[in-house]
């Protein structure tokens, strides 16, 4: 496996700088994503981890420019994909980029496929939108993609409808649609939560194989540190709309520097050893429409200081390529 350290030289395909996506609701402005920055290199897998409501899904929607406007809006920041900032471009231009340069696999394989079209039609449709090639080659290409995601007997299954397939197979078809136009960046939003463990293992292995073959960059949106440990090169931990810690997967696991990351890791039961008592994080995340001025984790933090409540901590380097937004970091 190629580790994060060896990737420093490869080219950056996606660069997010100070992205802020806010929603206007009756409770006030919900700062779902509030100033996040990260780079994604070719062939690299970045994990965005956090609990529900931390802004990871809104990050995903922002990257795809799928934020419902109104109530949502990307209020500032840039998303540079393949050298082009996709925040200011028109919806028509974005539609061309979606699927061809940046693609998405979402959580629920039941709703991401249309029940009234055969899976072959749906893969072909995805290819047709972006590539101006004759019908014959589209069919061939669709078959090739379905074979690539290891659909057994793809030739005979292209005429199947989604309901005729198992959850694992359906998720593979969704994956096939995702990679059908050879995107540079694939966003996977909890793609395996509805799958059984053995099927999940098959699927994750498949994703890795595809990535290796086509030098795809993947962003994994997940709440599960297990997925991160298995799949990712680098990790961004999100809390209340911001990235609180960012580093290589080993940095995060071996030397968690933000108390939230540390607590989260300590609160997950482990399969490889006996844990006498899990660490339990008190309380709940703050509501996103009413964030404190200081650190959002302060009210749950075991090592909170006065400073934390007064001012939001700057992002500081812990070591090379490892940053954390915490006053504790010197």
């Amino acid at each position, binding site marked *: 496996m190629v580790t994060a350290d060896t990737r420093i030289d490869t080219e950056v395909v996606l660069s997010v700088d100070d992205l802020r996506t806010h929603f206007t609701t009756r409770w006030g402005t919900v700062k779902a994503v509030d100033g996040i920055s990260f780079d994604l290199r070719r062939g690299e897998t970045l994990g965005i981890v956090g609990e529900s409501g931390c802004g990871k899904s809104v990050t995903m929607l922002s990257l795809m420019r799928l934020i419902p406007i109104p109530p949502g809006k990307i209020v500032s920041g840039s998303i540079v994909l393949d050298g082009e900032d996709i925040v200011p471009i028109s919806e028509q231009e974005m539609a061309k980029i979606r699927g061809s340069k940046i693609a998405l696999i979402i959580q629920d394989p039941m709703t991401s496929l249309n029940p009234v079209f055969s899976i072959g039609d749906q893969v072909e449709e995805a290819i047709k939108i972006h590539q101006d090639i004759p019908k014959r080659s589209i069919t061939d290409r669709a078959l090739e993609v379905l074979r690539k995601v290891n659909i057994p007997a793809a030739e005979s299954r292209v005429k199947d409808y989604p309901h005729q397939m198992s959850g*694992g197979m359906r998720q593979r078809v969704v994956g096939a649609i995702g990679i059908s136009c050879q995107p540079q960046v694939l966003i996977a939003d909890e793609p395996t939560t509805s799958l*059984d463990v053995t099927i*999940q293992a098959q699927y994750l292995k498949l994703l890795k194989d595809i990535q290796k073959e086509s030098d795809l960059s993947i962003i994994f949106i997940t709440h599960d540190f297990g997925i991160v440990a298995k799949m990712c090169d680098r990790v961004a931990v999100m809390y209340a709309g911001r990235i609180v810690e960012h580093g290589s997967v080993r940095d995060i*696991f071996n030397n968690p520097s933000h108390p939230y990351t540390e607590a989260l890791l300590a609160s997950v*039961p482990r399969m*490889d050893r*006996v844990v006498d008592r899990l660490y339990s994080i008190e309380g709940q995340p703050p509501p996103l429409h009413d964030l404190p001025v200081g650190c959002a984790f302060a009210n749950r933090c075991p090592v909170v200081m006065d400073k934390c409540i007064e001012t939001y901590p700057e992002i500081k380097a812990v070591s090379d390529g490892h940053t954390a937004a915490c006053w504790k970091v010197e």
Partner: protein
Amino acid sequence: MTTIDSSETKAERGQVLLEAKNLKKYFPVTKGLLISRTTGHIKAVDDISFALRAGETLGVVGESGCGKSTTAKMMLMLEEPTEGSILFEGGDVHNSAAVRKSYRSSVQAVFQDPWSSLNPRMRVKDIIAEPMVINWNITKAEQQERVMKLLNDVGLNEYHSNLFPHEFSGGQRQRLAIARALALNPRVIVLDEPVSALDVSIRAQIMNLLKDLQETYNVAYMLIAHDLATVRYMCTWVAVMYLGQIVELSPVQELFNNPSHPYTKALMSAALPSHPDTEQEEIILQGEVPSPLNPPPGCYFHPRCPAAMDRCSVDTPVVKEISEGHTLTCHLF
């Protein structure tokens, strides 16, 4: 029973409270619109036996369709077993009305979805008091007093008793569900994926709470789970299910130190690692779980088993004990 104090009914840790013997649940598959005929059976649970012990937790793991939820439903008497018996306090639940009555108030449940397990139109105090209203002949004041105690037990306070469920977060709702399950001083609580719908940081809160309550009340848990790490943290015993059968049943340490059935091994290798440097054996099972309508002949696992032998597709393996309390169903042993 009208006693509120549980101390006198407390069983000794490790004492067998409840035994399931050769439980089977077959669902008939029918065809035809007017005159329906049975064309086959889905063998959701196919001959399983296990015991629940005071103060201990039996974890039941397996993939979807393995029969773990049907097993939980049978234990809760929400489904009638097709065959087999549940023995409680020395009597068969399905034969004696008296046993059934005491069983009803001694076996409670906590379900996965905290949004669906509390009636949205009832106040918290009425939700928690309901089992007492049904089963105990005590005054309203006594009920309310006990509700307050239960709320304190699960880490909520008296202020919460007048609220409605929608005013709580998922983790708090799961606490309420636990308080309700504790209302009758049950001997056994069936926990059907109690933390999988919760956020990571909340899961630890609930798991720790459940462990503490077990310590205090010496209740037996049956934990239905799909996550092996949760099982390792919570359980004393583990039963691994595949296609309606228990393929391996063992004390928890023994199972994790010495997983023996090929399916258990595959399940462990497929589980997500706890650390990026965790060394994992790569056993990727081929294919998917066959339909329980037409399970394969011989050992149900043989079409996917990496260690399958010729006889596996012919002979049905029987339960063997390989060390104390560690039993499995496999021709390799």
